[in-house]
């Protein structure tokens, strides 16, 4: 028996929460007839169908371990995402996946962890951070650098507060354009990190954000002394089929949907097209 990988399976939205301006987080129940989601790794993604409109890939933002439900954080930027934002608890979407290669959890044990995220780029890292915190003793100190264009675009504010109060976790949040109430640092997350500095020895860095932010941050991290293999990012590409066939998301010989979306900087340098 072979299942048809192209067929979306109906799945119900359990709840919807306003995450930031133009960004919502959807809690989605396992596909109808399934008691739980398949096991997934932080960094993997789902192909989500809004029936009659289209399909788009979204990284899973919740940590593994709550198998009946998972969360997707989505910015309304195109046809599918705008229609998705119009949906509410109880509505049905189609899902395929989880797909892709997640973060290299096995290689992270015992290391210090640096997370650098821009805007909605915190979504896939949040899954990983949640996982790491659930096994806190296995890792060294954790630093989280997060930036957004302005305070209304900051996602996961409750999580940021909770992470900050956990032991041995440092959280730094910055915005490009502050409003009157903003008291934190101002500027891009990359420049904040560069200014404050970070000891690269024994650390692994995880970077996710808009392509231009990723490019600059990787450069800064390499300048700080990180080895390319210890800098991990997750790429945004136009993924359609999600299963390595349609060709749209290739980066050199890699197909982001099956060989990624998580890549080390060393892998991207080898792929030539990645940066």
């Amino acid at each position: 028996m072979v299942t048809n990988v192209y067929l979306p399976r109906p799945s119900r939205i359990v709840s919807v929460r306003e995450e930031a301006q133009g960004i919502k987080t959807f809690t989605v129940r396992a596909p109808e007839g399934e008691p739980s989601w398949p096991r997934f790794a932080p960094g993997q993604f789902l192909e989500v169908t809004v029936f009659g409109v289209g399909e788009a890939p979204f990284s899973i933002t919740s940590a593994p371990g709550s198998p009946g439900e998972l969360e997707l954080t989505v910015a309304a930027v195109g046809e599918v995402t705008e229609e998705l934002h119009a949906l509410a608890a109880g509505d049905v979407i189609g899902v395929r996946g989880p797909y892709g290669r997640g973060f290299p959890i096995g290689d992270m044990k015992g290391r210090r962890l640096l997370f650098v995220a821009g805007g909605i780029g915190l979504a896939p890292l949040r899954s990983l951070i949640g996982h790491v915190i659930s096994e806190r003793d296995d890792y060294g100190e954790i630093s989280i650098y997060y930036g957004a264009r302005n305070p209304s675009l900051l996602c996961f504010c409750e999580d940021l507060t909770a992470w900050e109060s956990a032991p041995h976790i440092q959280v730094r949040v910055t915005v490009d354009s502050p409003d009157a109430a903003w008291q934190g640092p101002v500027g891009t997350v990359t420049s904040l990190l560069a200014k404050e500095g970070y000891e690269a020895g024994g650390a692994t860095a995880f970077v996710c954000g808009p392509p231009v932010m990723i490019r600059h941050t990787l450069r800064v991290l390499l300048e700080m002394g990180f080895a390319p293999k210890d800098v991990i990012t997750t790429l945004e590409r136009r993924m359609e089929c999600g299963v390595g066939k349609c060709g749209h998301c290739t980066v050199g010989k890699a197909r982001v949907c099956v060989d990624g979306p998580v890549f080390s900087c060393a892998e991207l340098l080898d792929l030539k097209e990645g940066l």
Partner: protein
Amino acid sequence: MRFLPEGELAGLLAALSQEAEVWAPARRPNGVVEFQKWEPGTAVELAVLLARQAPKEMVFPQTETYLGYRYLMACPAVRPETPEEAKLELEGEGGEVVAVSPSVSHQLLVVEDVGGSSPTRADVAGVELPGTGARVIFGLRPCDARGFAQMDNVFGGYGGFYFDPYYNARREVTTLVAVACANPRSTCFCRAVGGSPSGTEAVDLLLTEVDGGFGAEAVSERGQRILDYAGFREARAEEEQAVAAAHARAEEAVEAPFELEGVRENLRANFEDARWHDLALRCISCGTCTYVCPSCYCFNINDEMVEGRGERFRCWDNCFNPGYTLETSGHNPRDAKAARFRNRFSHKFWYYPEKYDSLLCSGCGRCIMHCPTRIDIREVIRTMGAPAAELPARAEEE
């Protein structure tokens, strides 16, 4: 070796068409030679070396629907119905309702599975896609058959990856009867990419035209079964010699315009070379080369709704289209034409080979024949696949 006297060809095709749909190259009224469904009386055209299109659409159709949508009537005065009534009606039409969608645009939507793929029933062997009965593709060339072998890697789930039910449902019931090339064109370069005008990769039965008929050699069990047809007889010694001579003649007629050895490494080394821009200058990003290619397999997935009904389908896509890599955010990793141009050739001679240990080109030359700006893949590989030190000098830079 078996032999099919010329007069038996129509009989063979008739016998094959008893059990399968037979597709063969034939001339259309407008003069174009294309693969068409063979019926008694159809003249098979083998004098033209290549049908305009490789027969890849027999297995991988240009468009293929796999989900259907239908809105419930929003206005009860026009046509009152409940979701249950609509479901019954759709199921009566042969579709299976797989989901009832939410209030997109304030209308309830019913989703039916019209792909015919019965994915909910999940038994691919029992799939009834349009055109998934047994098929024989007759009269394709060895390069066309190799195109299937190259696509098989991708869709067949080589290396433990995902299996494509649509492609494979057709591929598994398709028999390839190739006819060796008697008169290769100047644009043929199969030998440069490891093929041959009498190559047998992916071929079930190879026929070779000689005086008085066809020499026939089975390559697979399927091909062997075709030889059971009573019109075949044992080949005479001189016929076997004629077949061997025809193969040798054709082999000699195909030029090998570049050396394959080192191409992959050199493409890698020349990745940033400015000559990519020079070569891409006259490309108009039309994508013709990808559509006529027997091994290009990229596709697009789209949803389309018209007047309350709609479908999700996939259709051939073209990596030269700037929209091919355009993301919703506006980010486009291959915005530049030269980057798209480099990607296609690198995919065929470097990326795909690294994954599948095979090229994604069978040397048919259709892309050379049909390019409106005369871009020649042989020239591209000769240039960019050469060691950097041996590259021809570049025209003066600005």
